[in-house]
């Protein structure tokens, strides 16, 4: 297993990170523990969750994934685990977070409430990498970066990152951090796979020039690249099979997550939104 540095931070992680977003809905706790045990045994020391999980996000069970992960982590050496989680972005019409009555936002109040609740569910007193799950481009980055800076100074969080961010937003955040003298985003967690190479355009340059690491999600396109949907197949229990697709669409978004696939797409479509 190779290990790599996260941004310009002192933290090194295995170059594979185990995600958790199905734990609590598609995956029950027992199966989740088996997956996590096998990952740790194989040398994976980096795990990613979110207050918004499991998916599809729903106020009824939001936070369940962190609870499951917290119970698993209790059975391990906390020091041997690099734990990443996320605070929900703003709940506007496009996506609604599964916390705080669906009224999440990236202000000081919400970020503080979020980190406190996550620490409780995760049964730990610190988070290694704390990420903003999706950005709010309608506000300045100043309050976000200042609040994250406070969390690091107070020891709740070691380093911070962003997710589902674009090149403009990442540069604006770095400018705010540099101007204010706060912590800066060390990582960006975006969609990147053989099925979606958009990151290679502007963001990869920002990352290289500014020393920010991509920690890509959906490397197999949410299962699409496994080939299991080829030829229009709808395997049972799979995320994008017919029933699952309806369930996702109706989960918490006011708009359909689905767009008609282009004629050049040989696979089934995947959500264009943020996980």
């Amino acid at each position, binding site marked *: 297993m190779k290990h790599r540095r996260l941004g310009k931070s002192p933290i090194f992680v295995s170059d594979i990170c185990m995600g958790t977003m199905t734990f609590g809905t598609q995956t029950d706790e027992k*199966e989740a523990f088996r997956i996590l045990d096998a990952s740790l045994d194989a040398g994976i020391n980096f795990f990613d969750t979110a207050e918004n999980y499991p998916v599809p996000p729903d106020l009824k069970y939001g936070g369940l994934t962190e609870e499951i992960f917290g119970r698993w982590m209790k059975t391990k050496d906390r020091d041997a685990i690099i734990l990443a989680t996320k605070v929900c972005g703003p709940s506007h019409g496009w996506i609604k977070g599964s916390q705080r009555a669906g009224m999440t936002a990236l202000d000081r109040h919400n970020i503080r409430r979020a980190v406190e609740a996550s620490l409780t569910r995760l049964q730990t007193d610190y988070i290694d990498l704390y990420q903003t799950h999706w950005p709010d481009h309608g506000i300045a980055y100043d309050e976000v970066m200042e609040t994250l800076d406070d969390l690091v100074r107070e020891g709740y969080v070691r380093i911070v990152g962003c997710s589902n961010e674009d090149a403009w937003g990442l540069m604006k955040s770095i400018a705010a951090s540099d101007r204010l003298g706060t912590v800066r985003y060390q990582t960006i967690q975006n969609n990147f796979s053989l099925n979606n190479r958009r990151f290679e355009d502007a963001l990869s340059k920002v990352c290289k020039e500014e020393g920010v690491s991509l920690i890509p999600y959906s490397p197999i396109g949410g299962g699409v690249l496994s080939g299991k949907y080829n030829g229009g197949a709808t395997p049972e229990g799979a995320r994008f099979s017919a029933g699952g697709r309806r369930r996702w669409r109706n989960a918490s978004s006011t708009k359909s997550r689905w767009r008609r696939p282009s004629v050049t797409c040989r696979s089934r479509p995947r959500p264009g939104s943020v996980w």
Partner: protein
Amino acid sequence: MQIAAEAGISVVTLATAWSKQHDFVASTIVGASKFDQVADILAAIDLELSPEVMKACDQVTKDILYPMG
């Protein structure tokens, strides 16, 4: 899938290894909803794709553009 078959690995392993092989990537976030899916992911741990395989992947993504712009 043909590229993976020719390299003697599963397409999940191929996609995971491909992702790791970019200089701006620190750690590839994988996921499994079932335990049986873990093995193909772990197979990518020490795998390095040859330049030929990377080139073949590039050709596919050139031929089949990302449909969502």
